[in-house]
């Protein structure tokens, strides 16, 4: 009877207790890691924010046009604070993943492994999007100002087209980096772009050559500068 009690009742209970203890220590480890991550994240955020402020990072972002872009997206914080928040987020996320890894289950291990494999692509795509947006804004504004100064009536159209094409290239490159159906994106882009160009060519070339000529002349040819204006000495 005593043997039965020991083998059938106590042993499983002891094993269950050991397992629960092991799980509990893993859980506790995870909690400690997450709490540590939260604390480190908060500390890093404050340090990064103060360092960036001291380095006049907001001014740099303003010069590059990032500040205005971020404001336009509806963010109320400064670029320094947002950058500090990104650092905090990365630290907390890392701590969370480390905590999950501490559980030691195959599922969490697989998840963590895949996340870290994907992370560089994700960051690269974000950088591509950011740089592309800035370049498209800069080039668009260059074209707009130059076209207005040259007296071109279609200044806004030209600037819009410039921004559009740079953004299309950017999005294609970013999606490619994300690894989202690379072939589908390229084929879709090629079909769309080719379709637009072909349609425009047929419409302009066959449908109304005279109209197309007049339209292009009125939209893209700078207004004739009379001889009189060339004699002005501004300085």
């Amino acid at each position: 009877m005593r043997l039965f009690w020991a083998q059938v009742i106590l042993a499983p209970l002891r094993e269950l207790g050991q397992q629960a203890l092991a799980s509990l220590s893993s859980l506790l480890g995870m909690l400690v890691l997450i709490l540590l991550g939260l604390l480190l994240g908060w500390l890093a955020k404050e340090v990064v924010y103060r360092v960036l402020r001291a380095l006049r990072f907001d001014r740099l972002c303003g010069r590059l046009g990032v500040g205005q872009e971020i404001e336009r997206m509806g963010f109320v914080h400064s670029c320094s604070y947002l950058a500090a928040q990104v650092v905090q987020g990365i630290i907390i996320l890392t701590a969370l993943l480390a905590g999950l890894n501490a559980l030691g289950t195959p599922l969490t291990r697989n998840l963590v492994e895949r996340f870290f494999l994907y992370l560089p692509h994700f960051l690269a795509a974000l950088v591509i999007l950011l740089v592309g947006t800035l370049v498209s804004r800069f080039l668009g504004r260059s074209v707009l100002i130059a076209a207005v100064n040259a007296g071109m009536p279609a200044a806004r159209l030209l600037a819009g087209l410039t921004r559009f094409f740079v953004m299309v290239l950017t999005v294609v490159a970013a999606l490619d980096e994300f690894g989202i159906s690379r072939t589908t994106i390229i084929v879709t882009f090629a079909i769309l772009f080719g379709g637009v160009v072909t349609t425009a060519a047929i419409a302009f070339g066959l449908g109304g050559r005279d109209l197309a000529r007049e339209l292009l002349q009125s939209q893209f040819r700078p207004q004739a500068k009379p001889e009189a204006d060339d004699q002005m000495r501004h300085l």
Partner: protein
Amino acid sequence: MPEEILTDQVRQQLHAAGSVDIVIGIPSYNNAPTVSRVVQAAHAGLLKHFPERRALIVNSDGGSKDGTREAVLSATMDTSVLLLVKHPLYPVHRLTTPYHGVPGKGSAFRTIFRIVELLQARACAVVDADLRSITPEWIDLLLRPLLDLEYDYVAPYYKRHKYDGTITNSIVYPLTRALYGWRVRQPIGGEFGMSGRLARHFLTRDVWHTDVARYGIDIWMTTTALAEDFKVCQSYLGAKIHDAKDPGSDLSAMLVQVVGSVLSLLETYADVWPRVQGSKPTPILGFPFEVGLEPVPINVGRMSATFRQAVRDLLPVYQQVMPAALLRELQACAALPEERFALPDELWVTLIYSFALAYHRRALDREHLVKSLTPLYLGWVASFACQTANEDAAQVEERIERLCLVYEQLKPTLISQWPLQASEKR
């Protein structure tokens, strides 16, 4: 170790010439049709007015392809037609040298200043190579105040057609006057005299790779002289008539170099101009004789059309530069019918101060910022042309004087907004 900008060959030529009292600098770029006359006038001016001084004429050329340098060296002077009271004691040497560095007038000046420094000259005058109205008296008027009256800087004072030099009239003169407190009517005139001391001082500045090396040199020299308390005067030279303008020159590029330099100097002298109130006249030397002026035809319709298009199309750019109320006023002006088109002085001055503040806080790329001013400036020219269509030179000058006073009256608004603290939002 300062960068040496003169070649060994030029240094040898200068060594052979020995020390001189006066250097006349003539920056040039493809000015073959006019440069020989400018050299002759400078030569005659030296023989006639400074016969007892050692002098050197330096042509600093930007790589002309039309024989400018040959024209400089071969320009002959028939001295028999000059009425010389004293026989010249020394021959006037002549030197032509290509300059190095950023292509532009400022780099040419730098070479001339370096020669002034090497030869320990007491005075230097610079004249443009495209002048058609230069006379030997200009040399006297630009150098005499330096040699006999202890001035450091001589700015030119011309009679110009009311539509000639509109960047000067609308921005550079009134703004420089309001900021630094001295009325120098042609701060970017092109012809200047400066003491050897000031020329050497210019050389010590690290600006030769900026817009100062291009069109910005004139305003930089004038501002430096005014802001650093050098003794400045003006010399009345009569009429200024240039060779036909280079058709390739781009107005917005010119604005970037000139207005960009003015706005950049606001930062350089941020501890000087806020302390200045009002303005004082700068002495004008020379007899103010009347001159005939060439008419300057302008196309008001095209300019006002460019202004209207800019107010419509560049709205997103201007929103980053100026307050909404100012933008609404601009839109109201753009909506006026052609015959009533006008930009009030207060609006124009507030607009220029907004651009200065935007330049300072780097609201957007600085080249974009100043280029976006071009159509607004054309709007001012159109408005000015409409208002002064039937006015004579004296009335136009009065109008410019009123504009200057508005710049001075509104200066406290610029000062109050200048110390722009970085945004405190977290």
